[in-house]
């Protein structure tokens, strides 16, 4: 009885966005712009409500893991691929976040996309995006996760390139797609290893076989290290870790609601979610976790620094996402999976808020994104200013705001862990706090304070834009406080997350703090992150207040050059990788595509048939009785074949 309820609820959560997407996509002409909006929002709202009910079962009524396979997709000897749901506290919590953010983004898009000719297409894509992410989150096997993973990739490609007539949008979409493929390759290889050594892609089978996997060695390295490395490469692509982060800033070419969705709920969180989901594997691979820690922390620092010199309001927020993803990854590396999810959830809300607020600024300023042209907007759009400030403070980890709890806990967890590289990661992330404060204050100052720097006629904002901002501002402020005691419990995701004994002892100290959110905020006042944050915020404020930015940038010219070129990551890729890829692609295109496929395989049979037909054409008389003879002969051959057996 309960299992039926779970199955139907999970089905509702996952498939109603798909239905919305199909309706909006295929009946676009018939139902019109409003119909498409209404249907998709209704479907996502149903998904959200179902996720709420599931949340109630999982968290309030303390239900255990629920594993149900819905449909056998491929059955082969030795291996079966299924579609099914794996419901536990982790996946249901994630579903709730995804549907909540998606619902708000849908509503916000009504205002943001008003008057766009492709509005039905837009809503269909967004709903499909949500569906793919939900399939990824709810899947009970890696193949389904991979399906969602790729679905998310496709949807992001379509949405980043939504305004495909703009070259930059088309290129950004292409870049996002290609860079993600690199990561997906790692994921695919990891799945191959699972198929070979486990013989199944179901989570239940994989988790049972972990001790065996840990015992096997492959090429001088334990098999589990290989698997974790490949999975991490997959997550690097999707969650934009160095050096596969280069697609994320380009994704800013899409409509702003999409940026919010990609950054908050449906795409970049997928990698983190995957690692948390497979925590039992990573717990047995301290070496890879160490790498995750180092890469995440490095990204958290240096990618955030790029935001300091960027002038595009959306890109600043995008780089801040890169930095925050670094924090989440570092938390995964430090075995603090619960904290990684905690930060993922708080980040989902305040980052969605920041993006939607940035989008509101952009709408108000008639699609101007350059912060140098803003200034003093707090007087004309006070609501957006206030919510942007709330989001920024949450991002900067101002005590009592939701970002504070998750971020400080992560920093403390990394300080407490004993993995190699933990010290380096700890200082990286501490510096990261400073960097975050600098760019957040800078973005806020440039946009909302000071004097207007150009004549921007402010466009009126509709209610569908305002309300999601107000709704998102509430969790951005208070969610951390509410969730902190839960996050303080190592097992707040129930059995979904596995800890080794070592991790439990490392993390024990942090959780005591989180259990008392009020006193944690008080204690933070004399902690290093808070002091760094405070100092750098005020310093930034004064720098811009007295216009010292020019002078300072002259002093730090080399660093500025480095940052403005994004640490030369893109340059390196373009100089080192792209030429090779270009040569190979061209060769494959010539030989493989044009010669082998086009000429031989596609045109070959056609040409053969054509020459054959031309030859026998002369012998066709067109008389009925000749056709009758041929038919008779054919029938005779057929019958003799049957009779003579």
């Amino acid at each position, binding site marked *: 009885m309960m299992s039926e309820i779970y199955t139907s609820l999970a089905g509702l959560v996952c498939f109603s966005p798909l239905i919305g997407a199909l309706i909006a996509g295929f009946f676009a002409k018939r139902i019109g712009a409003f119909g498409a909006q209404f249907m998709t929002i209704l479907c996502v709202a149903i998904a959200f409500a179902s996720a709420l009910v599931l949340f109630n079962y999982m968290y309030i009524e303390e239900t255990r893991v629920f594993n149900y396979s819905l449909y056998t997709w491929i059955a082969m000897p030795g291996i079966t691929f299924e579609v099914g749901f794996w419901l536990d506290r982790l996946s249901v919590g994630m579903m709730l976040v995804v549907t909540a953010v998606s619902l708000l983004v849908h509503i916000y898009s009504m205002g943001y996309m008003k008057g766009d000719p492709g509005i039905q297409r837009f809503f269909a894509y967004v709903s499909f995006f949500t569906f793919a992410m939900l399939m990824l989150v709810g899947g009970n096997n890696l193949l389904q996760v991979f399906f969602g993973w790729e679905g998310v990739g496709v949807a992001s490609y379509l949405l980043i390139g939504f305004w495909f007539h703009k070259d930059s949008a088309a290129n950004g979409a292409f870049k996002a797609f290609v860079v993600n493929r690199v990561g997906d390759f790692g994921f695919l290889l990891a799945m191959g290893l699972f198929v070979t050594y486990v013989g199944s892609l179901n989570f239940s089978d994989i988790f049972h076989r972990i001790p065996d996997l840990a015992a096997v060695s492959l090429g001088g390295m334990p098999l589990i290290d290989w698997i974790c490395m490949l999975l991490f490469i997959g997550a690097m692509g999707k969650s934009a870790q160095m050096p596969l982060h280069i697609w994320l800033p380009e994704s800013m070419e899409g409509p702003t609601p999409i940026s919010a969705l990609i950054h908050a709920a449906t795409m970049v969180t997928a990698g983190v979610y995957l690692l948390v989901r497979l925590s039992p594997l990573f717990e047995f691979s301290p070496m890879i976790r160490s790498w995750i820690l180092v890469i995440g922390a490095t990204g958290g620092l240096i990618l955030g620094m790029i935001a300091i010199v960027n002038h595009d309001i959306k890109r600043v927020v995008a780089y801040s996402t890169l930095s925050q993803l670094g924090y989440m990854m570092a938390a995964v590396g430090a075995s603090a999976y619960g904290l990684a999810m905690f930060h993922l959830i708080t980040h989902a809300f305040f980052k969605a808020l920041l993006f939607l607020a940035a989008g509101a600024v952009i709408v108000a300023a008639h699609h101007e994104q350059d912060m140098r042209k803003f200034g003093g907007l707090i007087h004309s759009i006070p609501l957006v200013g206030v919510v942007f400030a709330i989001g920024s403070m949450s991002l900067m980890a101002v005590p009592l705001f939701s970002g504070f709890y998750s971020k400080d806990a992560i920093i403390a967890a990394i300080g407490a862990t004993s993995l190699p590289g933990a010290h380096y990661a700890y200082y990286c992330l501490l510096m990261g706090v400073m960097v975050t404060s600098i760019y957040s204050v800078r973005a806020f100052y440039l946009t909302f304070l000071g004097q207007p720097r150009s004549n921007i006629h402010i466009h009126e904002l509709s209610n569908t834009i305002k309300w999601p901002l107000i709704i998102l501002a509430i969790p951005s402020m208070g969610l951390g406080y509410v969730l902190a005691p839960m996050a303080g419990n190592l097992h707040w995701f129930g059995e979904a997350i596995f800890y080794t004994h070592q991790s439990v002892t490392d993390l024990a100290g942090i959780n005591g703090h989180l259990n008392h959110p009020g006193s944690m905020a008080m204690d933070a006042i004399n902690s290093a992150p808070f002091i760094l944050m405070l100092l750098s915020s005020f310093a930034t404020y004064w720098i811009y207040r007295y216009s010292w930015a020019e002078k300072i940038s002259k002093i730090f010219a080399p660093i500025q050059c480095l940052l403005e070129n994004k640490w030369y990551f893109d340059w390196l890729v373009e100089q080192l990788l792209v030429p090779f890829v270009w040569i190979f692609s061209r060769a494959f295109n010539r030989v493989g595509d044009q010669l082998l496929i086009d000429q031989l395989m596609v045109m070959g049979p056609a040409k053969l048939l054509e020459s054959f037909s031309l030859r026998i*054409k002369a012998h*066709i008389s*067109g*008389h*009925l*009785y000749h056709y*009758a003879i041929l038919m*008779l002969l054919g029938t005779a051959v057929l019958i003799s074949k049957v009779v003579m057996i």
Partner: protein
Amino acid sequence: MFEVGLLHYMALSGLLFVMGLIGIVLARKNLIALLMCVELVLLSVNTLFISIGHAWGDLTGQVMVLFILAVAAAETGIGLAIFVLIYRASDQVDLEKLDLLKG
């Protein structure tokens, strides 16, 4: 020799069938003659059905013949109508001259 059995009827209908085939394939006359030869072929098949049904004591063969008769009547009717149309269009129903499908 004087005991008439199933094989005799089968031989008869086989000969009739071949007769019809020769008419269709080799006696190149006109469309109407062609249709008559088709009738011969159908008649041979009907005879076969009836003989086998008779030999096995099963009426299903006769039921099949009934259906074949009905369908053949329908086919003849439509075929003749088409011939009338062909005649109207080209003033002849000569098989030798109907070669629009010639390559």
